Protein backbone atom coordinates (compact mmCIF):
# COMPACT_ATOMS: atom_id res chain seq x y z
CA UNK A 1 0.00 0.00 0.00
CA UNK A 2 2.75 2.37 1.11
CA UNK A 3 4.95 1.23 -1.77
CA UNK A 4 2.15 1.95 -4.22
CA UNK A 5 1.96 5.51 -2.93
CA UNK A 6 5.73 5.96 -3.27
CA UNK A 7 5.67 4.54 -6.78
CA UNK A 8 2.90 6.89 -7.82
CA UNK A 9 4.74 9.86 -6.33
CA UNK A 10 7.99 8.95 -8.10
CA UNK A 11 6.25 8.44 -11.44
CA UNK A 12 4.32 11.66 -11.04
CA UNK A 13 7.37 13.73 -10.15
CA UNK A 14 9.55 12.55 -13.01
CA UNK A 15 9.37 14.73 -16.15
CA UNK A 16 7.91 13.07 -19.23
CA UNK A 17 11.21 12.30 -20.92
CA UNK A 18 12.46 10.55 -17.75
CA UNK A 19 9.35 8.47 -17.06
CA UNK A 20 11.09 5.26 -18.13
CA UNK A 21 13.79 5.96 -15.52
CA UNK A 22 11.11 6.44 -12.91
CA UNK A 23 9.58 3.10 -13.92
CA UNK A 24 13.03 1.50 -13.65
CA UNK A 25 13.37 2.85 -10.12
CA UNK A 26 9.98 1.60 -9.04
CA UNK A 27 10.78 -1.82 -10.52
CA UNK A 28 13.93 -1.95 -8.38
CA UNK A 29 11.88 -0.99 -5.34
CA UNK A 30 9.70 -4.02 -5.91
CA UNK A 31 12.62 -6.43 -5.50
CA UNK A 32 13.90 -4.97 -2.24
CA UNK A 33 12.56 -7.22 0.47
CA UNK A 34 13.58 -5.30 3.57
CA UNK A 35 11.09 -2.50 4.11
CA UNK A 36 13.65 -0.17 5.71
CA UNK A 37 15.97 -0.50 2.74
CA UNK A 38 13.05 -0.08 0.40
CA UNK A 39 12.05 3.11 2.18
CA UNK A 40 15.60 4.51 2.01
CA UNK A 41 15.73 3.55 -1.67
CA UNK A 42 12.39 5.25 -2.28
CA UNK A 43 13.64 8.49 -0.71
CA UNK A 44 16.69 8.36 -2.96
CA UNK A 45 14.50 7.80 -6.00
CA UNK A 46 12.38 10.77 -5.01
CA UNK A 47 15.54 12.86 -4.85
CA UNK A 48 16.60 11.54 -8.27
CA UNK A 49 13.24 12.57 -9.74
CA UNK A 50 13.61 16.03 -8.17
CA UNK A 51 16.97 16.31 -9.92
CA UNK A 52 15.43 15.17 -13.20
CA UNK A 53 12.74 17.80 -12.78
CA UNK A 54 15.27 20.52 -11.95
CA UNK A 55 17.47 19.61 -14.89
CA UNK A 56 14.45 19.62 -17.13
CA UNK A 57 13.43 23.10 -15.98
CA UNK A 58 16.92 24.52 -16.29
CA UNK A 59 17.48 23.06 -19.71
CA UNK A 60 14.20 24.51 -20.95
CA UNK A 61 15.47 27.99 -20.13
CA UNK A 62 17.01 29.28 -23.31
CA UNK A 63 17.28 33.02 -23.00
CA UNK A 64 19.38 35.04 -20.60
CA UNK A 65 16.34 36.55 -18.98
CA UNK A 66 14.61 33.25 -18.47
CA UNK A 67 17.72 31.91 -16.82
CA UNK A 68 17.66 34.95 -14.53
CA UNK A 69 14.00 34.33 -13.81
CA UNK A 70 14.59 30.66 -13.12
CA UNK A 71 17.40 31.59 -10.83
CA UNK A 72 15.09 33.91 -8.89
CA UNK A 73 12.26 31.39 -8.80
CA UNK A 74 14.49 28.54 -7.75
CA UNK A 75 16.28 30.71 -5.23
CA UNK A 76 13.04 31.75 -3.55
CA UNK A 77 11.90 28.15 -3.41
CA UNK A 78 15.19 26.85 -2.03
CA UNK A 79 15.43 29.81 0.35
CA UNK A 80 12.02 28.95 1.75
CA UNK A 81 13.07 25.37 2.38
CA UNK A 82 16.40 26.37 3.93
CA UNK A 83 14.77 28.99 6.13
CA UNK A 84 12.15 26.47 7.23
CA UNK A 85 14.84 23.92 8.05
CA UNK A 86 16.75 26.56 10.01
CA UNK A 87 13.57 27.19 11.97
CA UNK A 88 13.24 23.46 12.65
CA UNK A 89 16.85 23.30 13.83
CA UNK A 90 16.19 26.22 16.15
CA UNK A 91 13.11 24.54 17.61
CA UNK A 92 15.09 21.37 18.20
CA UNK A 93 18.07 23.14 19.78
CA UNK A 94 15.92 25.36 21.97
CA UNK A 95 14.10 22.34 23.35
CA UNK A 96 10.69 23.13 21.89
CA UNK A 97 7.98 20.48 22.31
CA UNK A 98 8.05 17.79 19.65
CA UNK A 99 4.61 18.72 18.36
CA UNK A 100 5.87 22.20 17.39
CA UNK A 101 8.74 20.64 15.45
CA UNK A 102 6.36 18.26 13.72
CA UNK A 103 3.86 21.00 12.85
CA UNK A 104 6.56 23.26 11.43
CA UNK A 105 8.21 20.40 9.54
CA UNK A 106 4.84 19.36 8.18
CA UNK A 107 4.21 22.94 7.09
CA UNK A 108 7.40 22.96 5.01
CA UNK A 109 6.35 19.77 3.26
CA UNK A 110 2.75 20.92 2.88
CA UNK A 111 3.82 24.34 1.58
CA UNK A 112 6.18 22.84 -1.00
CA UNK A 113 3.66 20.26 -2.17
CA UNK A 114 0.80 22.75 -2.27
CA UNK A 115 2.82 25.22 -4.30
CA UNK A 116 4.09 22.56 -6.69
CA UNK A 117 0.68 20.96 -7.13
CA UNK A 118 -1.09 24.26 -7.72
CA UNK A 119 1.66 25.34 -10.06
CA UNK A 120 1.11 22.23 -12.13
CA UNK A 121 -2.65 22.17 -11.88
CA UNK A 122 -3.63 25.79 -12.42
CA UNK A 123 -2.50 28.17 -15.10
CA UNK A 124 -2.72 31.38 -13.18
CA UNK A 125 -4.06 34.23 -15.23
CA UNK A 126 -4.68 37.72 -13.96
CA UNK A 127 -8.38 36.98 -13.54
CA UNK A 128 -7.50 34.01 -11.31
CA UNK A 129 -5.26 36.34 -9.30
CA UNK A 130 -8.13 38.79 -8.91
CA UNK A 131 -10.50 36.09 -7.67
CA UNK A 132 -7.92 34.63 -5.29
CA UNK A 133 -7.05 38.04 -3.87
CA UNK A 134 -10.71 38.84 -3.28
CA UNK A 135 -11.42 35.46 -1.73
CA UNK A 136 -8.38 35.81 0.51
CA UNK A 137 -9.43 39.26 1.66
CA UNK A 138 -12.90 38.09 2.64
CA UNK A 139 -11.45 35.09 4.49
CA UNK A 140 -9.31 37.55 6.48
CA UNK A 141 -12.36 39.64 7.23
CA UNK A 142 -14.23 36.50 8.28
CA UNK A 143 -11.36 35.56 10.58
CA UNK A 144 -11.39 39.05 12.10
CA UNK A 145 -15.12 38.75 12.82
CA UNK A 146 -15.68 35.06 13.56
CA UNK A 147 -12.18 33.75 14.24
CA UNK A 148 -10.58 32.49 17.42
CA UNK A 149 -9.53 35.27 19.80
CA UNK A 150 -6.73 35.35 22.35
CA UNK A 151 -6.42 38.37 24.64
CA UNK A 152 -8.64 40.41 22.34
CA UNK A 153 -6.71 39.57 19.17
CA UNK A 154 -8.92 37.67 16.76
CA UNK A 155 -6.46 36.29 14.23
CA UNK A 156 -6.86 32.54 14.12
CA UNK A 157 -9.02 29.85 12.67
CA UNK A 158 -9.07 26.62 14.59
CA UNK A 159 -8.76 23.81 12.04
CA UNK A 160 -8.69 20.51 13.88
CA UNK A 161 -5.80 20.76 16.34
CA UNK A 162 -4.12 23.60 14.42
CA UNK A 163 -4.26 27.32 15.01
CA UNK A 164 -4.13 28.79 11.56
CA UNK A 165 -3.21 32.45 11.37
CA UNK A 166 -4.96 33.16 8.10
CA UNK A 167 -3.24 36.51 7.58
CA UNK A 168 0.20 34.88 7.44
CA UNK A 169 -1.03 32.53 4.73
CA UNK A 170 -3.13 34.91 2.68
CA UNK A 171 -1.77 38.43 3.13
CA UNK A 172 1.57 37.92 1.28
CA UNK A 173 -0.42 36.36 -1.55
CA UNK A 174 -2.82 39.33 -1.55
CA UNK A 175 0.06 41.81 -1.55
CA UNK A 176 1.81 40.11 -4.46
CA UNK A 177 -1.49 39.66 -6.25
CA UNK A 178 -2.12 43.38 -5.95
CA UNK A 179 1.39 44.12 -7.17
CA UNK A 180 0.60 42.05 -10.21
CA UNK A 181 -2.92 43.26 -10.94
CA UNK A 182 -4.32 46.61 -9.94
CA UNK A 183 -7.96 46.96 -10.76
CA UNK A 184 -11.03 48.00 -8.83
CA UNK A 185 -11.60 44.49 -7.43
CA UNK A 186 -8.05 43.87 -6.22
CA UNK A 187 -7.94 47.37 -4.73
CA UNK A 188 -11.19 46.67 -2.91
CA UNK A 189 -9.71 43.38 -1.70
CA UNK A 190 -6.65 45.17 -0.35
CA UNK A 191 -8.87 47.64 1.49
CA UNK A 192 -10.88 44.78 3.01
CA UNK A 193 -7.71 42.93 4.01
CA UNK A 194 -6.19 46.05 5.57
CA UNK A 195 -9.43 46.72 7.43
CA UNK A 196 -9.40 43.14 8.68
CA UNK A 197 -5.86 43.62 10.00
CA UNK A 198 -7.00 46.74 11.82
CA UNK A 199 -9.92 45.07 13.56
CA UNK A 200 -8.07 41.83 14.40
CA UNK A 201 -5.82 43.86 15.34
CA UNK A 202 -2.39 42.85 14.03
CA UNK A 203 0.31 45.49 13.80
CA UNK A 204 2.86 43.29 12.05
CA UNK A 205 0.53 42.22 9.26
CA UNK A 206 -1.00 45.70 8.94
CA UNK A 207 2.54 47.02 8.52
CA UNK A 208 3.25 44.37 5.94
CA UNK A 209 0.27 45.19 3.73
CA UNK A 210 0.93 48.92 4.14
CA UNK A 211 4.58 48.60 3.07
CA UNK A 212 3.70 46.29 0.17
CA UNK A 213 0.92 48.56 -1.11
CA UNK A 214 3.12 51.63 -0.64
CA UNK A 215 5.81 49.99 -2.77
CA UNK A 216 3.22 49.32 -5.46
CA UNK A 217 2.00 52.90 -5.13
CA UNK A 218 5.50 54.29 -5.56
CA UNK A 219 6.36 52.11 -8.53
CA UNK A 220 2.97 52.27 -10.24
CA UNK A 221 1.46 55.58 -9.20
CA UNK A 222 -2.21 55.88 -10.07
CA UNK A 223 -5.50 56.63 -8.38
CA UNK A 224 -6.09 53.06 -7.21
CA UNK A 225 -2.67 52.47 -5.70
CA UNK A 226 -2.65 55.93 -4.09
CA UNK A 227 -6.00 55.39 -2.40
CA UNK A 228 -5.01 51.88 -1.30
CA UNK A 229 -1.75 53.23 0.16
CA UNK A 230 -3.53 55.93 2.12
CA UNK A 231 -6.12 53.51 3.46
CA UNK A 232 -3.46 50.97 4.48
CA UNK A 233 -1.49 53.73 6.22
CA UNK A 234 -4.61 54.60 8.20
CA UNK A 235 -5.33 51.01 9.17
CA UNK A 236 -1.72 50.53 10.23
CA UNK A 237 -1.93 53.70 12.33
CA UNK A 238 -5.13 52.32 13.87
CA UNK A 239 -3.35 49.12 14.93
CA UNK A 240 -0.68 51.24 16.63
CA UNK A 241 -3.38 52.99 18.65
CA UNK A 242 -5.28 49.83 19.53
CA UNK A 243 -3.95 47.80 22.45
CA UNK A 244 -1.95 44.67 21.62
CA UNK A 245 -1.76 42.64 24.80
CA UNK A 246 -0.71 39.32 23.38
CA UNK A 247 2.14 37.87 25.40
CA UNK A 248 5.15 36.45 23.62
CA UNK A 249 4.75 32.74 22.91
CA UNK A 250 7.79 30.65 23.84
CA UNK A 251 9.81 29.29 20.89
CA UNK A 252 7.83 31.46 18.46
CA UNK A 253 7.87 35.16 19.46
CA UNK A 254 10.90 37.28 20.34
CA UNK A 255 13.20 34.50 19.21
CA UNK A 256 15.41 36.66 17.03
CA UNK A 257 17.05 38.04 20.18
CA UNK A 258 16.45 35.26 22.69
CA UNK A 259 18.21 32.81 20.35
CA UNK A 260 21.47 34.58 21.21
CA UNK A 261 20.93 33.48 24.82
CA UNK A 262 21.26 29.88 23.68
CA UNK A 263 24.37 30.49 21.64
CA UNK A 264 25.80 33.14 19.38
CA UNK A 265 25.69 30.72 16.45
CA UNK A 266 22.05 29.89 17.05
CA UNK A 267 21.15 33.57 16.93
CA UNK A 268 23.22 34.17 13.82
CA UNK A 269 21.74 31.09 12.14
CA UNK A 270 18.22 32.32 12.86
CA UNK A 271 18.94 35.75 11.39
CA UNK A 272 20.56 34.15 8.38
CA UNK A 273 17.52 31.92 7.90
CA UNK A 274 15.24 34.96 8.03
CA UNK A 275 17.33 36.95 5.59
CA UNK A 276 17.40 34.00 3.21
CA UNK A 277 13.74 34.75 2.56
CA UNK A 278 14.62 38.22 1.33
CA UNK A 279 17.94 37.68 -0.42
CA UNK A 280 16.70 36.11 -3.72
CA UNK A 281 16.03 39.61 -5.04
CA UNK A 282 19.79 40.16 -4.98
CA UNK A 283 20.05 37.57 -7.77
CA UNK A 284 17.88 39.62 -10.11
CA UNK A 285 19.82 42.27 -12.02
CA UNK A 286 18.68 45.75 -11.03
CA UNK A 287 17.42 46.46 -14.54
CA UNK A 288 15.14 43.41 -14.48
CA UNK A 289 13.62 43.91 -11.05
CA UNK A 290 9.89 44.47 -11.20
CA UNK A 291 7.40 45.64 -8.65
CA UNK A 292 6.73 41.97 -7.85
CA UNK A 293 10.31 41.39 -6.76
CA UNK A 294 10.25 44.51 -4.59
CA UNK A 295 6.90 43.70 -3.01
CA UNK A 296 7.94 40.12 -2.32
CA UNK A 297 11.13 41.23 -0.58
CA UNK A 298 9.47 44.06 1.32
CA UNK A 299 6.67 41.78 2.59
CA UNK A 300 9.07 39.37 4.25
CA UNK A 301 11.47 42.08 5.36
CA UNK A 302 8.60 43.83 7.16
CA UNK A 303 7.62 40.62 8.93
CA UNK A 304 11.21 40.05 10.00
CA UNK A 305 11.43 43.64 11.26
CA UNK A 306 8.18 43.16 13.17
CA UNK A 307 9.52 39.96 14.73
CA UNK A 308 12.66 41.82 15.74
CA UNK A 309 10.79 44.75 17.26
CA UNK A 310 7.72 43.19 18.86
CA UNK A 311 6.22 39.92 20.03
CA UNK A 312 5.48 38.60 16.56
CA UNK A 313 6.49 35.31 14.99
CA UNK A 314 9.30 35.11 12.50
CA UNK A 315 8.25 33.89 9.06
CA UNK A 316 10.11 30.62 9.56
CA UNK A 317 8.71 29.45 12.89
CA UNK A 318 5.09 29.83 13.90
CA UNK A 319 2.24 28.73 16.12
CA UNK A 320 0.72 26.71 13.33
CA UNK A 321 3.56 27.40 10.90
CA UNK A 322 1.17 29.43 8.76
CA UNK A 323 3.92 31.77 7.53
CA UNK A 324 5.83 28.90 5.97
CA UNK A 325 2.78 27.88 3.96
CA UNK A 326 2.11 31.54 3.17
CA UNK A 327 5.63 31.93 1.84
CA UNK A 328 5.31 29.05 -0.59
CA UNK A 329 1.84 30.15 -1.67
CA UNK A 330 3.10 33.64 -2.37
CA UNK A 331 5.71 32.13 -4.71
CA UNK A 332 2.85 30.81 -6.77
CA UNK A 333 1.74 34.29 -7.85
CA UNK A 334 5.28 35.43 -8.20
CA UNK A 335 6.24 32.52 -10.40
CA UNK A 336 3.20 32.85 -12.56
CA UNK A 337 3.62 36.54 -13.14
CA UNK A 338 5.52 36.31 -16.38
CA UNK A 339 3.65 33.22 -17.45
CA UNK A 340 0.40 35.15 -17.14
CA UNK A 341 1.67 37.82 -19.51
CA UNK A 342 2.76 35.75 -22.40
CA UNK A 343 4.16 37.15 -25.60
CA UNK A 344 0.77 36.59 -27.22
CA UNK A 345 -0.48 39.37 -25.05
CA UNK A 346 -3.66 37.60 -24.04
CA UNK A 347 -3.26 38.43 -20.41
CA UNK A 348 -2.20 41.96 -21.15
CA UNK A 349 -5.34 42.43 -23.13
CA UNK A 350 -7.31 40.90 -20.31
CA UNK A 351 -5.88 43.25 -17.73
CA UNK A 352 -4.74 46.48 -19.29
CA UNK A 353 -4.69 48.18 -15.90
CA UNK A 354 -1.61 46.30 -14.77
CA UNK A 355 0.66 48.65 -16.54
CA UNK A 356 4.22 47.60 -15.86
CA UNK A 357 6.20 46.20 -18.71
CA UNK A 358 7.99 43.03 -17.74
CA UNK A 359 9.11 42.17 -21.21
CA UNK A 360 12.41 40.56 -20.18
CA UNK A 361 10.49 37.99 -18.19
CA UNK A 362 7.75 37.21 -20.63
CA UNK A 363 8.60 34.24 -22.66
CA UNK A 364 9.61 31.57 -20.21
CA UNK A 365 7.74 28.79 -18.56
CA UNK A 366 7.87 27.48 -15.01
CA UNK A 367 10.10 29.32 -12.65
CA UNK A 368 10.23 27.77 -9.26
CA UNK A 369 8.88 24.30 -9.88
CA UNK A 370 11.60 21.84 -8.98
Amino acid at each position, binding site marked *: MMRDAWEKLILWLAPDH*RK*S*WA*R*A*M*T*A*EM*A*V*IGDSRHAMA*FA*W*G*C*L*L*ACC*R*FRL*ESNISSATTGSSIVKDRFGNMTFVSGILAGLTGLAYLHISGAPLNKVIVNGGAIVAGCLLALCLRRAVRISDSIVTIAVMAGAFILLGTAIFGYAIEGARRWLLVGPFFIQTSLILLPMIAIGFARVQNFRTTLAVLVAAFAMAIQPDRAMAAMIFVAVAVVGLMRPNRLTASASIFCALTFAATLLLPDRLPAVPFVDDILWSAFDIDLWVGLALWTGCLLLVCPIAFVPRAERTVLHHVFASCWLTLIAAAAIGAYPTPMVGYGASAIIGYFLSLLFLASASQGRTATGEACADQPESGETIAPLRNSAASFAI
Partner: protein
Amino acid sequence: MRKTRAPSKATRLALQALLEAPENLHGYEIMQITGIGPGTLYPMLARLEDQGMLASQWQEAEVGGRPPRHIYSLTEAGRVMAKGLLDDDRRASPQQLQAKPT
Protein backbone atom coordinates in the same frame (compact mmCIF):
# COMPACT_ATOMS: atom_id res chain seq x y z
CA MET B 1 31.45 26.76 -25.96
CA ARG B 2 30.26 24.10 -23.59
CA LYS B 3 32.78 23.04 -20.98
CA THR B 4 33.26 19.37 -20.25
CA ARG B 5 33.83 18.42 -16.66
CA ALA B 6 35.93 15.57 -15.38
CA PRO B 7 33.68 12.70 -14.28
CA SER B 8 32.92 12.67 -10.56
CA LYS B 9 34.16 9.97 -8.21
CA ALA B 10 30.67 8.46 -8.19
CA THR B 11 30.68 8.27 -11.99
CA ARG B 12 34.09 6.61 -11.97
CA LEU B 13 32.91 4.06 -9.40
CA ALA B 14 29.82 3.25 -11.44
CA LEU B 15 31.84 2.95 -14.63
CA GLN B 16 34.31 0.67 -12.86
CA ALA B 17 31.49 -1.52 -11.57
CA LEU B 18 29.92 -1.79 -15.02
CA LEU B 19 33.27 -2.42 -16.68
CA GLU B 20 34.31 -5.17 -14.31
CA ALA B 21 30.94 -6.86 -13.95
CA PRO B 22 30.75 -10.24 -15.70
CA GLU B 23 27.21 -9.50 -16.87
CA ASN B 24 24.83 -6.57 -17.15
CA LEU B 25 23.81 -5.00 -13.87
CA HIS B 26 20.56 -3.80 -12.34
CA GLY B 27 20.41 -0.39 -10.72
CA TYR B 28 20.15 -1.83 -7.22
CA GLU B 29 23.18 -4.03 -7.88
CA ILE B 30 25.25 -1.03 -8.97
CA MET B 31 24.13 0.68 -5.79
CA GLN B 32 25.26 -2.25 -3.65
CA ILE B 33 28.62 -2.57 -5.41
CA THR B 34 29.49 1.12 -5.38
CA GLY B 35 27.61 2.39 -2.34
CA ILE B 36 26.14 5.24 -4.40
CA GLY B 37 22.62 6.23 -3.38
CA PRO B 38 19.78 6.20 -5.90
CA GLY B 39 19.45 9.99 -5.71
CA THR B 40 22.87 10.28 -7.32
CA LEU B 41 22.98 7.04 -9.26
CA TYR B 42 19.93 7.37 -11.50
CA PRO B 43 20.55 10.94 -12.72
CA MET B 44 24.13 9.87 -13.42
CA LEU B 45 23.06 6.77 -15.36
CA ALA B 46 20.55 8.84 -17.32
CA ARG B 47 23.28 11.33 -18.18
CA LEU B 48 25.64 8.55 -19.25
CA GLU B 49 22.93 7.12 -21.45
CA ASP B 50 22.28 10.55 -22.99
CA GLN B 51 26.00 10.78 -23.78
CA GLY B 52 25.95 7.37 -25.45
CA MET B 53 28.18 5.75 -22.83
CA LEU B 54 25.53 3.49 -21.37
CA ALA B 55 22.90 1.19 -22.79
CA SER B 56 19.82 0.17 -20.88
CA GLN B 57 17.20 -2.40 -21.69
CA TRP B 58 14.19 -3.91 -20.01
CA GLN B 59 14.53 -7.44 -18.68
CA GLU B 60 11.51 -9.53 -17.76
CA ALA B 61 11.38 -10.34 -14.05
CA GLU B 62 12.37 -13.84 -12.99
CA VAL B 63 9.63 -13.88 -10.37
CA GLY B 64 6.09 -13.71 -11.68
CA GLY B 65 4.00 -10.66 -10.90
CA ARG B 66 6.95 -8.33 -10.68
CA PRO B 67 7.54 -5.57 -13.21
CA PRO B 68 10.40 -5.80 -15.75
CA ARG B 69 13.68 -4.29 -14.58
CA HIS B 70 16.25 -2.09 -16.28
CA ILE B 71 19.65 -3.65 -16.86
CA TYR B 72 22.66 -1.58 -17.75
CA SER B 73 25.80 -2.16 -19.75
CA LEU B 74 28.51 0.05 -21.16
CA THR B 75 28.49 0.81 -24.86
CA GLU B 76 31.73 0.52 -26.79
CA ALA B 77 32.33 4.25 -26.33
CA GLY B 78 31.54 3.85 -22.63
CA ARG B 79 34.04 0.98 -22.26
CA VAL B 80 36.77 3.02 -23.92
CA MET B 81 36.07 5.99 -21.69
CA ALA B 82 35.83 3.85 -18.54
CA LYS B 83 39.11 2.08 -19.30
CA GLY B 84 40.81 5.40 -19.98
CA LEU B 85 39.55 6.90 -16.75
CA LEU B 86 40.49 3.88 -14.68
CA ASP B 87 43.96 3.78 -16.21
CA ASP B 88 44.41 7.46 -15.39
CA ASP B 89 43.22 6.90 -11.84
CA ARG B 90 45.47 3.90 -11.31
CA ARG B 91 48.45 5.84 -12.59
CA ALA B 92 47.61 8.83 -10.37
CA SER B 93 46.73 6.92 -7.23
CA PRO B 94 46.92 3.14 -7.30
CA GLN B 95 44.63 2.68 -4.31
CA GLN B 96 42.14 5.41 -5.04
CA LEU B 97 39.45 3.24 -6.52
CA GLN B 98 40.13 0.15 -4.51
CA ALA B 99 38.44 1.47 -1.39
CA LYS B 100 34.74 1.35 -2.06
CA PRO B 101 32.32 2.99 0.29
CA THR B 102 30.33 0.52 2.32
